[in-house]
Structure formats: structure tokens, C-alpha cells
């Protein structure tokens, strides 16, 4: 070992400890940063030359310390699971929101929902039955019938609105996904350059992982490590980001081959092939293609039954002039209305059960006893309640899993201030000691020089 080597050993220690203190500072600075993984300086003892040589003076003592690199602490297995669980959480969360909105649209049980309107409608018939010659009773019945019909219309258009807004949301989500994928590709490029020039771009990687997690929420993306620190991001089996290149997604609305109803789907922009999306997008697609049409069909079923039952009874009766009844309700579910002829002329309401202009309320009484549509409507509401409850429970369960996973990830990657402070004290002491060592070597040399 050379005379001045001691100074170098001290210097390397000062460097290494200062680097460690810097990284600790960075950790503390980012204690609350989203997606930040705590970093550690990897140091190794510098062993010095170990190759025997003719004039080598090496005595086997090391040459101090070297900081090899700065690593970020994270568990790749947990990150992969996080992608899956976050996608499930986002999917169920979105479904829960939609079911909640549908339930709001039904507004049951209450005194204002369709069930109450239907009960009022039947009661209106009874009132006409009590007083078939009273125009006030007839107008009241027409008023209630119009309210009921518009109640069906309103519910249907509320549901249709939910379906339409889910397409808008899907379009916004996919636009965001494309932008995020672009950012990831950019970061991939930067990180590759940094890695190949020997740097540790940990902070950029953290940013990129956070973006991938966003993609998991939105389209159920998963990530696989690529070369030189880059990652490939997959949606289904296809890569949306491969190194620095991006395959964009697009929203496509087509007509169903059988029913002709519009069906929304997410496709790859280039080849228009189906993309197997997950996460929130999957929920939005299901909302538009399955959930909303199902509910609208169910309501249409009730409206059809109502129309059939009411028209059936109505056409078997006789109006005020004793002429056979005409259709009372017209139009399918979304456009159910009271026959405009009857609205214009309430005496056309077939309250009488006998022909020939009698003041009879037999048919109106018979109408008031119909309960079929009410029962069907209750079935629809209960079915909705059960589905919504199931989704809510699944969401809660999934949320627990996701929360726990996030806690585990935080436990691995998060910054603990106590720990950082302890490290800081340790590094500070090490730095002081290294400085003291340099002083000692200095004094040694001083002694040596003064001897001369």
C-alpha cells in the first residue's frame, strides 16, 4: 500500500457516505409521492489490485469503498398482481356505479315510482266505475294514464341516457389510454438511453409504473419487462406499448347482426381487430351492450303487458255512447302513450260492460281488478335489487383484496421516516468517522514530513 493511499481510502468513504445521505434525502423528499419506491445505495468494498505482479506493493488491504448503483426496492410479483386486482376493482366499481344510477332511475320503493303511478291508474278506473257519467272522473283517469305512460317513457329514456353516456365515457377513457400509452413509450425510450449509459433512472421507472397502473384501471393492461429497462404493456394478448412504439386503441360502434341494436366495442386502431379490454372500459362496454338493454327490455316487457291487458279489457267494454271500446294505450315501451282519440274525447273510455249507452261501470270495475303488470314490475325491481346487491358485495370484497395488496406494496416500496432517520444518523456518523480518518492520515504524514 502506498504512502498516500490512506487519503484515497478516506476520500472514497466520504464519497460513498455522501451519496448515501443524498439518496436518503431523496427518499425523505418523496415520502408522500405517489408510486415512489424507496431507493438504496449498493456499496462494495474496493478490494484493490489482487493480481500478483513483479513490483506490486499490494498488501491485500482494500482500497476503500465504492457505490455500485442505486436500486429501488420493489416486488415485481406484487406489481403484476396489482395490475390484475386494480383492473378487477375498476371493473366492479364502474358496474356498481351504473347499477346505483339505474336504481335511482327506478326510485323504488316510494310514493312516486312507477308502482305508485300504476296503482293510481287502476284506482282511477274504479272512480270512473263509481260514476261513469261524471266527466271529472274520466279526466282524472286520463290524467293518471298519461302520467303512467310518461313514467314509462321517462324511465326508458333515463336508461337510454345511461347507455349513451357510457359510450361517451368509453371514448374519453380510450383517448386517455392512448395518451398514457404514448407517455409510457416516451419514458421507455428515455430509460433505455439512461440504462445503456450506466445510469439508474429509478424515478423515471416509478413514473412509468404509475402510468401502467393507470392503464390497468382503464383497460386492464399488464406489463412485461423488455430489454434495457424498457417494458412492454399488453392489453389482452396484444401489446399496446412495445418498447418505444404504441398501438393505439379506438372505440367502434356497430349494429348487432341479429337485433340491429348498436353495439360498442374497443378495437385496435390499425387493423380494427377486437381488443380484449378489462378494467373500467370492460364495465362501460357491458353497461352499454348488456346491462342497459336488459333493463330496457324488462321495462318494455312490463309496458307491453300493461298495454295488452288494458287494451284487452278496454276493447271488451263499451264507451259512453254504447260503442265498443278502442285501443287505450298505443306504442311500444319507450313511446307508450294514451290513444290520442281518447285524450281528445274522454267519453270514448269504455267504462261500460254492456252495449247501448247504459250508465254502467262494469268494465271499469273489471279493469281496476287487473294486477298482472304490477306483479311483473315488482319482479323487475326485485331482480334489479338482487343484481345490484350482488355487484356491491363483489365490489366490497374486491376492494378489500386490492387495498390489502396496495398495503403490501407500500410495505415493500414505501418510505419509512424512522428508518430513513436512522440511516441518516448512521451515514452521518460514518461520514464523520471517514473525515476523522483523513485527519489521522494527515497527521501521520505531517509527523513523517517533520522528521525530515
Amino acid at each position, binding site marked *: 500500500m502506498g504512502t498516500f493511499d490512506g487519503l484515497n481510502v478516506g476520500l472514497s468513504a466520504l464519497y460513498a457516505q455522501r451519496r448515501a445521505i443524498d439518496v436518503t434525502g431523496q427518499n425523505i423528499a418523496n415520502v408522500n409521492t405517489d408510486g415512489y419506491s424507496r431507493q438504496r445505495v449498493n456499496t462494495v468494498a474496493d478490494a484493490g489490485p489482487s493480481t500478483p505482479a513483479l513490483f506490486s506493493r499490494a498488501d491485500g488491504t482494500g482500497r476503500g469503498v465504492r457505490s455500485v448503483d442505486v436500486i429501488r426496492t420493489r416486488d415485481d410479483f406484487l406489481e403484476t398482481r396489482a395490475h390484475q386486482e386494480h383492473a378487477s376493482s375498476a371493473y366492479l366499481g364502474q358496474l356498481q356505479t351504473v*347499477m346505483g344510477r339505474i336504481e335511482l332511475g327506478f326510485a323504488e*320503493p316510494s310514493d312516486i315510482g312507477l308502482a305508485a303511478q300504476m296503482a293510481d291508474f287502476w284506482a282511477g278506473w274504479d272512480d270512473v266505475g263509481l260514476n261513469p257519467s261524471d266527466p271529472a272522473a274520466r279526466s282524472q283517469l286520463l290524467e293518471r294514464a298519461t302520467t303512467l305512460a310518461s313514467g314509462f317513457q321517462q324511465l326508458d329514456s333515463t336508461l337510454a341516457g345511461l347507455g349513451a353516456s357510457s359510450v361517451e365515457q368509453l371514448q374519453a377513457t380510450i383517448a386517455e389510454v392512448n395518451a398514457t400509452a404514448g407517455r409510457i413509450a416516451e419514458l421507455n425510450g428515455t430509460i433505455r438511453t439512461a440504462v445503456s449509459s450506466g445510469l439508474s433512472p429509478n424515478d423515471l421507472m416509478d413514473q412509468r409504473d404509475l402510468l401502467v397502473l393507470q392503464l390497468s384501471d382503464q383497460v386492464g393492461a399488464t406489463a412485461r419487462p423488455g430489454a434495457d429497462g424498457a417494458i412492454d404493456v399488453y392489453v389482452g394478448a396484444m401489446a399496446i406499448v412495445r418498447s418505444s412504439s404504441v398501438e393505439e386503441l379506438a372505440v367502434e360502434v356497430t349494429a348487432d347482426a341479429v337485433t340491429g341494436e348498436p353495439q360498442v366495442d374497443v378495437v385496435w386502431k390499425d387493423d380494427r381487430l377486437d381488443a380484449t379490454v378489462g378494467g373500467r372500459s370492460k364495465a362501460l362496454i357491458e353497461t352499454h351492450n348488456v346491462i342497459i338493454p336488459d333493463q330496457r327490455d324488462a321495462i318494455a316487457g312490463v309496458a307491453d303487458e300493461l298495454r295488452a291487458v288494458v287494451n284487452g279489457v278496454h276493447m271488451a267494454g263499451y264507451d259512453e255512447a254504447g260503442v265498443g271500446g278502442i285501443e287505450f294505450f298505443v306504442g311500444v315501451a319507450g313511446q307508450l302513450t294514451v290513444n290520442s282519440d281518447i285524450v281528445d274525447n274522454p267519453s270514448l273510455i269504455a267504462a261500460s260492460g254492456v252495449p247501448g249507452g247504459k250508465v*254502467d261501470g262494469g268494465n271499469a270495475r273489471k279493469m281496476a281488478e287487473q294486477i298482472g303488470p304490477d306483479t311483473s314490475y*315488482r319482479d323487475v325491481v*326485485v331482480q334489479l335489487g338482487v343484481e*345490484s346487491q350482488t355487484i356491491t358485495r363483489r365490489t366490497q370484497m374486491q376492494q378489500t383484496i386490492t387495498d390489502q395488496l396496495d398495503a403490501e406494496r407500500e*410495505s415493500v416500496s414505501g418510505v419509512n421516516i424512522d428508518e430513513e432517520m436512522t440511516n441518516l444518523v448512521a451515514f452521518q456518523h460514518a461520514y464523520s468517522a471517514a473525515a476523522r480518518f483523513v485527519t489521522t492520515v494527515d497527521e501521520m504524514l505531517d509527523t513523517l514530513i517533520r522528521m525530515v
Partner: protein
Amino acid sequence: MSLRITQKSLTLTTSKNLQVNLSEMQRLQDQLSSGKLISKPSDSPTGTVSALKLRADLRRGEQLERNANDSIAWLSAADSTMFEGLSVFSRVRNLALQGMNASSGPEAREALAVEIEGLREHMIGVANTKHLGRPLFGGTTGTDQAFDPNGTYIGDDGAIERTVMDGLTVQVNVTGEQVFGTNGSNVFDVLTDIVDSLRNDPSALNANLEALDERAVAFRSAHAQVGARYNQVEAMRERTESARLNSKNALAEVESIDLPATIMELKLQEVAYQAALSATARVIQPSLLDFLR
């Protein structure tokens, strides 16, 4: 594996727990302020179906009560009108008996005949009594009156029926023919015959009286029928009323909150929330920083 706890995970878990506490408080306060246990179907699908069914029952019950009240109005109008008619029968009978008395001369019989003619007019008025603008005894006729001024029935034999319980209808009218007899032999024809006999042939009065008694019996039995139906409807109304009360109670049980229990629950939740808050205040505070120099 024991979790390594960091300040951030501590903050996250704590705020998540506070959130859970707070949302539970909100749920309870919602229930308290609305008084409802079920505000949407998914709160309890089975409860919702019961609530919907009971509400429908309630509304149906209200309507049935209205029907019963309307029936009672019809029947009591018929009852009091027929009560008035009964007195006419006994008065006419008295007058006819006076006419049969050998001591009464033609002048006296003429006076009796005139009085009976007046009573006949009165009886036609009774028979044309209206309820809610419709002739009480006219069946389902669209005409304004049940009998024309000659005492001929111009109504029909239509039944006016009311549903007073599900599956049970009651006829609330009696037709003019049931009460006053068929055209040709109805009360008014009998009265005309009596007037005729008084003026022309007192010996026929005996047969006339028999015919009158026959009509009086039919009239009384129609009256009794009205009374019986009145009682039936009244009983049905009481049953409907008590059924409605039962539905109301059942609905409250399904849908409404148990107030004391909910208040207790809210209080407990408040305590839990405050405990969580003060614990949070203590937990978040200290770190090693507080103890270094």
C-alpha cells in the same frame, strides 16, 4: 411475513378506516332523517318486494273503502227514499178502507179519490228520486227519470255494482220494477185502479186492496234487501279498514327504521368515530424526528 409499516401506509389505512366510519355514520343519519330502512332495491331485495306489495295493497284498500263509502251512500239514499214510500202505502190503504165503508157517499169517495191521486203523484216523485244526478231506481238508464209522469217505467233492469272487497261485488241499486212492480201492474196502476173504483165501482175496491197489499209486500221485501246489503257493505268496509291498518303496520315494519335502535347505533358509531379520530391524531404525530436533538 410481518408488514413493514411506513408513514404513508399508516396515513392511508387510517384515512380509509375513518372513511369507513364516516360512511357508516352517513348511512345511519340517512336512515334517521328519512325514517326509511330501504331507500333503494339493493338495500334489501326481499324487503323491497314486500314494500311494493304492501303499498299496492294499501292503495287498493283505500280504493275499496272509497267503493264501500259510495255503496253506502247509494244504499242509504235508497233506504230513506223507500221509507218515505212506505207511509204512502199505509195512507192509501186507510183511505181505500174509508171508501169501502157503506156510510160514505159519492162526494166523500170523490174527496178520497182526489187525495189518492195526490198521493200517486207524490209516489211518482219518490220513484224518481235522484242520487248524484242519476235516478235511484232507474237501473243503468241514461235517461233523467225512472218513471214517466204516467207512472210507466222507462228505466232498465241494469245492476249497478261495486267492488267492496277483492272478488266480491255488491249490487247497490234496486230497479224500479223490483220496487214498484212491472208496467201494467205496478203501484201506480194499482193506485189508478183504486181511484177508478172509488169513483165508479166501490165494490171492486176489495180486489184493489189485495193488489195493493201484494205490491206493499214486494216493496217491503225490496226495502229489506237494501237494508241487508247496507249491513253487508258496512261489514266489508270494516274488514277492509282493518286489513288496511294491518298492511300499514306491516309496511312500517318492513320499511321504517326502529328509532331507538337506530339512535343507539348512531351514538355508538359517533363514539367509534371520535375514538378513531383521537387515535389518529396521536398515531400520526410522532416519528424519530421528534426525538433527535
